[in-house]
Structures are given as C-alpha cells and as structure tokens.
C-alpha cells in the first residue's frame, strides 16, 4: 500500500548519534537476558501457581466432591460451610496459638544462640554448625523421631524414661489433649529445626554492628551486659528482628508437616493447611469446600500482610518513611 510508503518516505531520517546503535543493541541484549533468565520461571509461575489459584477460586463456587471439573454451581455455599462448621475457624485459632508461642520463642532462642556463638573465642565454627545442622533435617523425619522415640508414650520413650527416674508416671504426650502436652512436642520439634537458621541471620547482623559503638558506649560509662545489649545491640538488630518475625509468621502459616505427622485422627491441633488438606485431599475429597477455605485463608494472609506493612513498616521504601 502506498500509505506506508508515503509515511516512511516523508519521515525524517534519524540523526546519526555516535554510540546510539550500541546502546540499542545493549538494551535489546539486556531485554533478551531478562527473558532468558525469568521466562522459564514466569511460565512455571503461571502454570503451577496462577492457573491453580484461579482454578481453585472457580472450584470454590461449585460442588466439587471427588472431582476437579464440577458442573453444579452452589454459589457461596462452600464458604458458608467452611465458616460455620467450626473446624476451619478452629484451625485459625490453632494457628494463632501456635504463632503466639513459636514466633517469640524462636526469636528469643535464635537471638540467644547467636549472642552465645558470637562471643565464643574458640570452636565458633563448630558450634555454628552444630546449631545450624538441624535445618537440613526434614520436618517429617524429625516429627517421626519425636513421636516414636523422644515423646513416645511408653515406658521406654526417652522423655518418659527421664521422668521415670524422678518417679513421674508415663505421659501420653500426643494422645491426650488434657493437658495439651502435644504443644510441647510440636513446639520443641520446630524449635530444633528452625532456630539454627534464624541464629545465622542474627549472627550476620551482630557481625555488622560497628565495634566503635560499643567502644563509645564504654567511654560514656555504659556497663557491658544487659545495659549494652538493651541500648546498642537490640536497636541495631531492629531490621533483622523485623525480618525474622515476618519469616517466622510466614513459616507458622505454612505449618503442616509436624502437625500432620504427630497428631493423627484428632479434632484439635489442626492449623489451616492441615484442615484444608483433610477437607480437600484427605478423606473428604471436597475440593469445593477446600478451595473456599483456601480463598478465605489467602484473603486473610493478604490482610495480615497489609497490616504488618502498616504497623511494622517492613517493605516500605525510605521515601515513604
């Protein structure tokens, strides 16, 4: 067509700028690199994350029992079921209790370990490794060791053996919810598994605190120990602490393995993911209700994330402060 020819013919020739061709080439090259490196992951993200999320949201409005391609639309019935039968809302309470215990305890323990290892003058690498190594163990394996060996309810379970030395009767750690000894088992296994990882984060942060701050404080008369820790170390660790707390909360939300493996056929001690597993993938095979629960949980997590951003300021840029 002549239109294009005419337009091209009348277009002024671009001015020759030295180096412009190389810059264009450079921009195109970096774009290509971007797609080479991110493309596969983007495709994976779409296939394995966004499509399932969309499908799950769609399923939540259908009666999808023993099928993921349902045809019976039920509106908000699945949402009503999840919010009224008490099991799902109970799982949110379980999560809250778990998070309320595990977040501060792991924070304190990992910080304590980091301080201890940081001050060691010899065998620092050894102790760093010793505390970090449990991170490499799987939650399932650790849970089974805790269940069948350490906290077995029989007389030769390790904890019961120790208690037996002091004349204490055998305790059924996981079978009896009154008193809820199962929390001790669950919290201790997770502490063992994750405290070392957060210790490393704190250790890195501790090593970044300038020694001049301690020297200046000493000159000003600050006593070493608690006073220095409270007024120098702790404020300097604020950013790391915030990140650690956020990571711990995320990990608590994702809690599944130890609850699933330690507590069987209970109606208690089910955090949201375990409850959703039992609803959607376990015996019930109700993908509609499970999906509704997943959508509710996602909205809840989004809300909590926004709130934490509002109150803790994590993730805000400097200009927004």
């Amino acid at each position, binding site marked *: 067509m002549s239109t294009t020819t005419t337009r091209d013919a009348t277009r002024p020739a671009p001015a020759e700028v030295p180096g412009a061709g190389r810059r264009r080439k450079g921009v195109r090259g970096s774009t290509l690199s971007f797609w080479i490196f991110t493309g596969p992951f983007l495709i994976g993200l779409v296939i394995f994350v966004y499509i399932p999320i969309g499908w799950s949201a769609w399923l939540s409005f259908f009666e999808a029992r023993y099928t993921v391609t349902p045809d019976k639309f039920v509106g908000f019935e699945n949402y009503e079921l999840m919010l009224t039968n008490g099991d799902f809302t109970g799982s949110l309470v379980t999560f809250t209790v778990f998070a309320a215990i595990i977040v501060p305890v792991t924070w304190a323990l990992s910080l304590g370990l980091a301080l201890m290892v940081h001050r060691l003058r010899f065998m620092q690498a050894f102790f760093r490794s010793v505390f970090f190594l449990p991170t490499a163990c799987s939650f399932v394996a650790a849970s089974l060791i805790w269940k069948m060996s350490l906290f077995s309810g029989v007389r030769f379970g390790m904890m019961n053996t120790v208690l037996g030395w002091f004349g204490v009767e055998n305790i059924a750690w996981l079978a009896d919810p009154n008193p809820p000894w199962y929390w001790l088992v669950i919290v201790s296994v997770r502490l063992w598994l994750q405290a070392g990882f957060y210790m490393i984060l704190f250790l890195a942060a501790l090593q970044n605190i300038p020694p001049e701050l301690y020297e200046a404080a000493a000159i000003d008369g600050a006593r070493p120990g608690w006073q220095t820790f409270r007024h120098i170390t702790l404020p300097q660790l604020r950013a790391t602490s915030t990140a650690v707390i956020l990571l711990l909360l995320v990990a608590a939300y994702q809690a599944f393995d130890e609850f699933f493996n330690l507590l069987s056929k209970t109606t208690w001690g089910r955090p949201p993911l375990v409850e959703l597993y039992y609803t959607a*993938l376990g015996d019930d095979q109700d993908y509609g209700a499970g999906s509704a629960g997943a959508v509710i949980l996602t909205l809840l997590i989004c809300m909590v994330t926004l709130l934490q951003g509002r109150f803790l300021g994590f993730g805000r840029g400097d200009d927004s402060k």
Partner: protein
Amino acid sequence: MSALSSRNWDRRSVLRATAGLAALGPLAACGGNTGREGGGSSGKSLVQYFHAYGEAGTQEAIKRYAKAYDEARVTTQWITGTNFESKLFSSLLTDNAPDVFEFHPQLQLIKSGQVAPLDDIIGPVKDDFNPADITSHTVDGKVYGVRMIDDPQFFFYRKSLLEKAGVEVPQTLEELAEAADKLTTDKVKGLFLGNNMVSTNYALVWAAGADQLNDKNEIAYHTDDVAAALKVYRRMFTSGHLLLDAPADYWDPSALVQGLTAIQWCGMWAMPVMQKALGDDLGVFPFPSAASGAKPAVYNGGWSMFVNAKGKNVDLAKEYVKWLWIDQKKYQEDWALSYGFHIPPRTSLAASATKLKSGLPAEGVKLFTEYGRFDNISWTQAMITALEEVIANSVRKGMDPEKALDAADVKVDRELKKLFG
C-alpha cells in the same frame, strides 16, 4: 552439513530452543515416575496400587504375581505411610490414575463413576464367594470389586497375664474396663485399643446393639447405648490403664509381643507373628457386648480389588483382575495364608485352608463366622471421619457423648443427602 552448523543456529534459534526446553522441562517433570515405563511382551501395561502391608514378603509376593501375568506388564505402586486413601483419591482424578487398585467398598466411588462393575468376570463364580462379601460390594444389583481377603479384627490376650491377675475373659464392656484395671502394672498396661482409639469404633457401635446406618440408609449409630458405651471408653481413657502413644499402632503386633499390654485389638493377619513370639500364651475374644442383650462384635475388614472405570485400559484391567483374583487360586491362597493370616473370601479356598483348621486360627475363624460384621457400602469416607471424630471428641477430649454424636449427625446427614437426596 552438520545440523549444528553455526549458520543454522543463530541467536534467535538458540533462544527459541532454550525457551522451548525450559517450558517443556517442568511439564516433563510432571509426568515423571508414573510407573508406566516399558510394557510386557504384548507392549501393554497396567498400574496397580497397594497400601503397604505390615507382613514381611507381601510386597514381593504381589510383584511376583504381577510378573507372571503374560498379557501386560503390570507395575505395582506400594504406598507406605498412612495416606493411602489420599494418594489414591487424588490420583484417580488424574491421567496417572492406577488401572486397578485395592480399597474397601464405598458408594462414593461408584456414584462418582470411578469404579467399573465387574459382574461379567465375577458372575460365573459369584456363588463361590462369601455371600456377605458379595452383598457389601453390590449396588443396584451390580457387583463392584473382587474381594481378595477378609480380615477379622478382635482382641488378642496373654493367657498367663490374665491368669496371674485372676481375670476371666471379659464378656461385657464393663468387664473389659475392669480387666484393664486389674491387668495394669508399672510395666504393663491392661489394654491397647490403638493410639487414636478409632479402630474399634465400628465394633463398639455393633456391640452396643446399634449399626452405622439402617436399611433405609438413615443414621442408626446414635443411640443411648452407644452414648453409654462411649462413657465407659472415656473412663478407660482417663484411668491410666490404656496403652497410649505406642511406637507402633494397633495393626502391628509389637505392643502385645513386647509386653507393653496384656490385651490388644488387632487383626488376624498378625496371628502368625504373635504365635511365633508367644507360643500358646495367646488367646482371642470378640469385642464384648456393650449393652443388655447385644451380641459381641468382630469387624471383618479386608481388601478388595477395583478397576478404574475412567482408566485407559478398562477391559485389560478387568482381564488382569479376573486372572489374578478369580482364576489363580494358588496365588490367592498364597496371599491369604503365607504371610499373615487372612480368611480367603472364596468358600472353596477357605474350606481347603488347612492352616485355619485348628488351634488359634480356627478360633479366629469361629469368631469371624459367629460375630463378624462387614463393611456397609453406603458408609463413605466422610462418614468414617465423622464417627472417628466422635471418639476423638467424646473419649479423648471429654466432650459429652450426646453432643459429639449430634455433631457427627450433622456431617453424616449432609453426606446421606448428597448420596441419596
């Protein structure tokens, strides 16, 4: 000229190829380990799912039978852990679903069109099967599934420990609680009902004179006698006379064999191991009566072979099931009697099973015949969970049994409405 000439492979080609491979990678990974590798001499292949049996040699036996089948290469997935149902149900929704699988008769599978009727293969030998097994697999006149083994479950006890404590074999649930009390010492607990205590929930309902559902498929477990029996269970649970949190659960004979308990609920499959360890110091009795006039109860568990109706090789799968579980009597006998003890569902096989003719195995068969109760095909997975929650809530958590049963009623009613309208 080489296909890898630099002139053929410019930068864009390389990029396209890289992107293509990267995109295919995850998809290829999805299809990994399907268990469908290769094929038999005929080039056809089948996949079968089995849960992990506790008896040594069972996995090898199943693979040996499969290998002997000439018409197709049969691959076995031996699923360990406690999530057999979860793995089976979720895989049945995918293209990697097994062609044949073992499970229990459940109406939900039939309503969902997941299992094929097997009348054409079982019809000619229907009369040779235990009638109760046929009934428990029949819906609207069609038989779904071929029973492989019947597994009666009852109490095993150490005769010497009962004699030492002056305890008679319990005839009622109250007597069972008293026996647990008298048999408990600082080393041995009186009774083991399983770690989560749900393994006896059917027997408890039956021994209290009730049933899971009645003939009209309505709730039949919610009675005053069942509530009263649950209170006895709660008393036993809080008494300190039950073995709880054992390293192995009720299905494993180790609690009794290792001297952790005097009485244990278990299945007949564990009898050979128990006899080997304890010799003649072993007896069996049914779940005792839990209400006035009610009969004792034995739960006849077991496993059946089903054909995936949505599979790619339904006819071949049916042929395989017929070959192994109907025609090959030597394998059926081997499967039932060479590892643990199971009762063959085929009357002709059960009659010729000499290992079950005398001694303790014969007593087990007698309990099976006198008190055995079979699965109800209308009692589905969600209902199973609901009744298990009654045990969790009323026995272990201390909730009033009536309230726990009311909560189960809501869930079971919802299921019944979905199944029967």
